[in-house]
C-alpha cells in the first residue's frame, strides 16, 4: 500500500511542478500568430451599396443563406433557386471561388454538429456542382455550432443558426 502511494505522490508532484512553471507567454505568442481576418471584417463588406450582382439587394445573388430543419441537411425547395443562381454565377465567372460554411444550432453534440454542418455545406455544394459550378470552384467547410449568428437560446435563434452561408473569395 505504502509503495503505491509513494509512486502516486511522485507522479502528482511532478505533474503539479510542471504545471506550475507553465509560461503564459507561449500562449500569447501563438495568439499573435493568427493573422487571418475575423469573420466580422469579411461580413462588413456585404452592406456596401454597389452594382455588384453579388451584393445588389435586388439580385438573388445577394441572398447567401440556406436554412435547414433540425438534424437535417436536405436543401429545401424554397432555397433551390438561390443555390442554382449562385451556381450559374460561378459557371459564368470561371475565376470566381465560393466558400460554403455549414452551421448548426447549439443543441446536442458539438462533434456531431461539426459533422452535420459539413453535411449541410456539402449538400449546398452538391446542388451547385449539379447546376453548373465546377467542383474546384466551391469549398465546403463546417463551423458546427461554434459560430452562432443568433446567440439566443430559443427556437428563433436555433432556426437562424441551422444554416449554410455562401461566401465569395475576396469578400
Amino acid at each position, binding site marked *: 500500500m505504502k509503495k*503505491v*502511494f509513494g*509512486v*502516486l*505522490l511522485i*507522479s*502528482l*508532484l*511532478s*505533474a*503539479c511542478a*510542471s*504545471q506550475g512553471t*507553465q*509560461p*503564459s507567454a*507561449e*500562449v500569447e505568442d*501563438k*495568439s499573435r500568430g*493568427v493573422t*487571418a481576418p475575423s469573420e466580422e471584417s469579411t461580413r462588413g463588406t456585404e452592406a456596401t451599396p454597389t452594382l455588384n450582382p453579388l451584393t445588389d439587394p435586388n439580385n438573388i445573388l445577394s441572398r447567401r443563406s440556406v436554412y435547414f430543419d433540425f*438534424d437535417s441537411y436536405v436543401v429545401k425547395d424554397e432555397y433551390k433557386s438561390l443555390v442554382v443562381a449562385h451556381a450559374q454565377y460561378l459557371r459564368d465567372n470561371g475565376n470566381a471561388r465560393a466558400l460554403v460554411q455549414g452551421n448548426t444550432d*447549439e*443543441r*446536442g*453534440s*458539438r*462533434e*456531431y454538429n*461539426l*459533422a*452535420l454542418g*459539413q*453535411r449541410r455545406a*456539402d449538400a449546398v455544394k452538391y446542388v451547385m456542382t449539379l447546376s453548373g459550378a465546377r467542383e474546384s470552384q466551391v469549398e465546403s*467547410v*463546417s463551423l*458546427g455550432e*461554434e*459560430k452562432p449568428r443568433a446567440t439566443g*437560446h430559443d427556437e428563433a435563434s436555433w432556426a437562424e443558426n441551422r444554416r449554410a452561408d455562401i461566401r465569395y473569395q475576396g469578400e
Partner: protein
Amino acid sequence: MTGIIYCFANSLKVTPMLPVHIRLRKFCPYAAVLLLWLASAPLHAALNIEIFGGGATQIPIAIVPFAAEERLAQGITPVVSSDLQRSGLFRLVDPGGLRPHEPVEVVYPDWANRGAGAVVIGSTTAIPGGQVAIRVRLLDVARQTELAVYTETVPATQLRAAAHRIADIIYEKLTGDVGVFSTRIAYVIKQGKKYSLQVADADGFNAQPVIEYTEPIISPAWSPDGKQLAYVSFENKKPVVYVQTLATRARKAVANFRGSNSAPAWSPDGKKLAVTLSLMGGSQIFLVNVDGSGLQRLSQSSGIDTEPNFSPDGQSIIFTSDRGGSPQIYRMPVSGRASGTAERLTFEGSYNVSPDFSRDGKSFTFIHRNGDRFNVAIQNLATRQVQLLTDSQFDESPSFAPNGKIILYATEVRGRGILSAVSSDGKTRQQLSTQAGDIREPAWGPLSR
C-alpha cells in the same frame, strides 16, 4: 457568488472548516442540499461545487480535525470531508466537542452514540524546510479496530493533493472501489471571445490553462497516462487536431488534413488516435499514429461517422453515425477481418450521440434526446438496458470517471454552460460552476498511478 447560486437561495451554506451533520432528503433528490462555500479557498480556485440528492446507503463517517491542522495554510480535513461528501456515498457525522488525535483517545461508544460507523483522526506536524508530516488513522467504530493508517510528508504547497490521497484511501477502504479524488479533469471555458482549455483537480481546484485562443477549442481527450491532451482548435480557421504535452507545453498538429479534423480519441496503449476527417468527403473515422503518421481509414459509410471512443481492450470503437437515418451509436472492430463492420447499439429514440466507454468496458454513457431534452444516459452492453440519468434540458459530452462511478458532463443553467456530475446509478448529482463564463467539453482524466 455565481449566477447559479442564487437559484438555490435556500441551500445550506457550510464552511469546510466546520463539518456539519446533513441529512440528505432522498425523496427530493434534486433539491439543492449543500453548497460548499469556497470563499476562504485559494485565489486560483476556479470552480464552485454543489451537491444534489444522495445515495440510499450512505456511510456515516466522522472526520475529526487533525492536531495542529489550524496552523497550516491549507486545512486537510475540510478537503477530505468535501471529497467524501461529493461522492454521495458518505454522510458526515458532527464530531461535536470530541477531538481525539490518537487511538488511545478514542472512546468508541461516544462515536457509536453519534451514529458514526467510521472515524478519521490524525495529526499534522510542521517540520523545518516547509514540509508537513501527516499521520491519519481510519477507525471502525463497530469493531473498534483500525482499518488503515497512513503517513506522508509533503511540502506545505501540496496539502490539498495529500488530502485527496487520504480521501482516496478512506473511499477505497469503506466502499471497495477505487477513489478518484486525486484525478484531474479538463474542460473549456469561454469568457467573452476567449476560449481557454484548462486542467483542474477533480474538485475544481488548481485550475491551470493549457492553451487560450480567441477561436473555439473543443473535444479535449486525455492520453491514457494522463500526460498529454488531444483537442480540436479552430485557431487556423478550421478544426485541426493537436496533441499537447502538459508538462512541457510542446504540441503538435497530428491531424491537419484538407477539410475538417476533429473528435480525437486515444487508443488504450496511447499509440494511436481515432479522429474524424472530412478528407475523403463526408465525415469518416480514421486512425492515425500519435506522431501524425500512418493515416488509415476505419469507417466506411456515406453518412456521418464521428465521436469515436475506444473500448478499454482496444479491440473496438463505439461511435456516432447517422447511416440509419438518425444519429445512433454503433460499434466496430478496429482491426482484423471485420474491421470497420459496424453493429448498431442504440435503438431508443432518434438522437443518441457522444458515447464514452466505462473503464471496465461493460457499459457506455451517451447523450439521448428525450423529447425536447438532451440527457445523459447509460447503456449496459450485455443486457442492452438503457437508463436515463438526468432530466435537465441540454446535457452534452458525458465522460466517465476512471472508477466508473461518476459521469461528468456539460449542461446549461439559465443560458450558461456549467459542469455537472451524476453518479452512474443516477442517485447523486453535483454541479461545478465558474465565477464567470461558459464552461463546457469536460473530460475526466485517468488515475494518476
